[in-house]
Structure formats: C-alpha cells, structure tokens
C-alpha cells in the first residue's frame, strides 16, 4: 500500500486538475493528482482527443489531445506526482485539519488541502429499475464481469443488448452451466459479427436467447434464486438462476464523493465563488463538477477557478505568510524541487 504526503491532493487529472497544479506550483505548493482513468487528460484524452477546441484563449484552434500535452509540459517544472487508474474512495479529516484521501486500491494521500476537479465524475454501471435489485448486489447480482471464472458452472442470466452483453455472452457460454441472454429489442446494434455469433449460438442451443423481453423482478431469500422475465412485455416467465448480470453501459456519477458530506445541488458540488471552496474547510471543487449561480461548464472557467482556489489554499498551507500575487512575466517560473 502506497503512502503519499503532499500539500494538495487534486482529484481528477482533466485539464482543470492539471492547470491547478500550475497555479499551486506558482505559490510553491506541491500537488499529487489522482484519477480513476489510467491516463491524464480526463474527457479530453478519453472521449475526444482528436476534436478541436476553439475557445481556449490564445489558441484559435487546438486539438483536445494537444491541449493535454501542453498542460503536462506547463506543469512539469512543479513535479506533480500521480496515482492513475485508481478511483478515490474515502476521505478522512484529521483533528489537525488535514486530510487522508484513500483510493479503491488502498493508496493513501496525506494532504492539507483537497481539490476536487472530477469533471463528469466517474463512470459507474447503469442499474435497471428493478425493485429490490440492490438487496442482491454481491449476492447474485453483478453489474460487471470482473472474473468470468466466478460464473463457472453457474446458471446465469445476462440482460442488455450492447457490445459488453454480447461479448460476455459469447465468452461465458461454455463456462456457465446455463446461460440466458435477455434483450428488450429484436436486433443488436453492436458489432455485427458478435450479434451473428450470439444468434447462431442460440440456434445451436448453446445459450438461451429471449428477445423483446425485460427482466422485471428478482427473487430469493438471502441470495438471488430466480428472475422473472416479461416475455414480449406480456407473459411472465420465471428462470432459476445463481447470477443475474445487467449490462446496460456506464453513466457518469459523482460516485463515493457523494458521501463526503459536501453540499450538493443537482449532482454537482456547491461552492463559494470567492475561492471555489466547499462547505468543508480545506476542500475545494473546480471545473465541471462544481456549481454556483451563473456556472458555465467551460474549460476556461475551470482555469479561472483553479487560480482563485490556489490563492485561497495558500492561506491554509502557509498560514503565517502573506499572499502576494506573482506575475510570471516578472518572476518567470521557479521550479519546485523534485
């Protein structure tokens, strides 16, 4: 288990999280950046690296991926450290006002200030609206396949029509004792070869395929024992199962941050626009994840928020020093020691 000590822990390595390292660095504050994704850049790297952005001041046009590269170069003198591919999970506030941020993998980051720059949040499995579904989570209901071996010789119902539903159906057909795929449509829009494979497997009796149907109920005492499939949306059909795996894609959610005691509004973190602080002293939220009257979800607004956050965070990290605004044209960039 890694233990890291820093001044500021930045949650989110998107453009705003990265630029926060720069603004903090100018004021000699060290940063550690955590992101659930395995690479920096957030949405810009993950979703649209080749798309041009036109509203970054001074850049008539810049590719999202290039903006990320430039930001990495810009913050390099401040030697930020990173934990990538680990989603933050838990936050602990210590008696001295400092924090411990923990990731799902158990990495601990001790810091004086936490800056949440989480953008859309983290992508979590979309859960179908089936009553009592949560009762069987980890007791038969799984929203993703982590280890297919877990389902060996089990009776499994997969529900969904996207690529992951098709891929796992194909992969697990030989593994499970009995495998049923339930899909609400009559066709699959996923990869045509996967769809053809699933249809032929159904014809050969390797899997059960129930089209135009939805799983509507889950049953069981302690653990999941059966699901009800509404066939053609009219005829209920009960199937005895060990596992039910709804695969309905991912949806951006705040995730564990939701339980940190922060004041929220419409799934975003409410901040004070004086310094983008939250209701918890020492925790700031900048970029797309925050909200305030007049909020605009623009990268350039996130950059502005990062600058104001940094001057406020300075008062927490250096309580005895007076804040003086430094211009880079006057002072240049003073590298922090690695």
């Amino acid at each position, binding site marked *: 288990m890694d233990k890291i000590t820093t001044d500021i822990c930045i949650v989110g390595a998107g453009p705003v999280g990265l630029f926060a390292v720069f603004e903090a660095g100018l004021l000699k504050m060290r940063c550690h950046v955590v992101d659930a994704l395995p690479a920096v850049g957030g949405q810009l790297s993950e*979703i*649209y690296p080749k798309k041009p952005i036109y509203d970054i001041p001074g850049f008539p046009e810049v590719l999202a991926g290039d903006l990320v590269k430039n930001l990495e170069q810009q913050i390099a003198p401040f030697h930020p450290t990173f934990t990538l591919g680990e989603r933050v999970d838990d936050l602990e506030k210590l008696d001295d006002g400092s924090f411990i941020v923990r990731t799902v993998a158990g990495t601990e980051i001790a810091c004086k200030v936490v800056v949440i720059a989480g953008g*859309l*949040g983290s992508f979590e499995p*979309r*859960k*179908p*609206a089936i009553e009592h579904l949560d009762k069987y989570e980890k007791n038969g209901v799984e929203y993703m396949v982590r280890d297919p071996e877990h389902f060996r010789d089990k009776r499994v119902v997969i*529900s*969904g*029509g*996207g*690529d992951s539903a098709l891929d796992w159906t194909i992969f697990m057909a030989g593994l499970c004792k009995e495998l049923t795929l339930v899909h*609400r*449509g009559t066709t*699959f*829009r*996923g990869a045509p070869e996967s769809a053809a494979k699933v249809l032929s497997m159904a014809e050969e009796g390797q899997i059960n395929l129930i089209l135009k149907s*939805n799983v509507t109920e889950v049953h069981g005492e302690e653990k999941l024992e059966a699901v009800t499939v509404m066939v053609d949306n009219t005829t209920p059909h009960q199937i005895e199962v060990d596992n039910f795996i*709804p*695969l*309905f*894609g991912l*949806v*951006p959610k705040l995730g564990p941050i939701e339980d940190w005691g922060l004041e929220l509004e*419409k*799934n975003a973190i409410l901040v004070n626009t004086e310094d983008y602080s939250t209701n918890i002293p020492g925790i700031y939220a900048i970029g797309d994840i925050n909200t305030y009257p007049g909020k605009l*979800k623009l990268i350039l607004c996130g950059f502005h928020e990062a600058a104001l956050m940094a001057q406020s965070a300075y008062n927490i990290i250096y309580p005895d020093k007076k804040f003086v605004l430094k211009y880079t044209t006057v002072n240049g960039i003073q590298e922090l020691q690695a």
Partner: protein
Amino acid sequence: MKDAINIYVEQDGGERIELEAPLDMNLSVMEVLKANEFPVQAVCGGMAICATCHVEVLQSGELPDMSDDEAYMLETLPHATDTSRLSCQLRVTPELDGLVVRIMPEA
C-alpha cells in the same frame, strides 16, 4: 420564414407544455429543455455519451437519422422504447416544429 418552432413536453398526466425554440441559435432539443428548467441532467453536455437527456418522441415529422453513437447509447439503456432519442442529438430545425416528447426517467 418563422424564426422559432414549438416543441411540446408531455407530462405524466398527459398535459402538454408548449416551448418556443428559436431557430437561429443552433440549439439542440436538450438545450431547449434545460433552458426551460426541465429536469434534464445532460451531464456530458451533448456528446451522446451519458444518455441523461433521454426522451421518448411521441409525435414528430421527419427526424434526423441517428448517428452510430446515439444508436449504440440507446441500445444500452434498459428502458428505451422504439421511439427513444437522445435530445442532445436533435437539432432545432423547421422540420422539428410540433415535436412532442416525454422526458424519460434516468436509470
């Protein structure tokens, strides 16, 4: 030529709320819904990656074709119907005049 069209949002009770959507601002139906303070999250801002602007089209003229991204996203939703669309992918054009949608709950 008109400078705005009307879009209707059907409520649970069947009541239809009329919205005016200007044609000169290159808006999407999602943006019109948000501007009128309907509970549409549209977390991703219009990139067809979150499906938090999912609507069911109840009445319309000819709608624009679906991109692969939109079709794929709708395919993954547990409660989409045959006339489901992502409102962020519907541009406000004269062809959309009279569109009636129902805002779908989030899964």
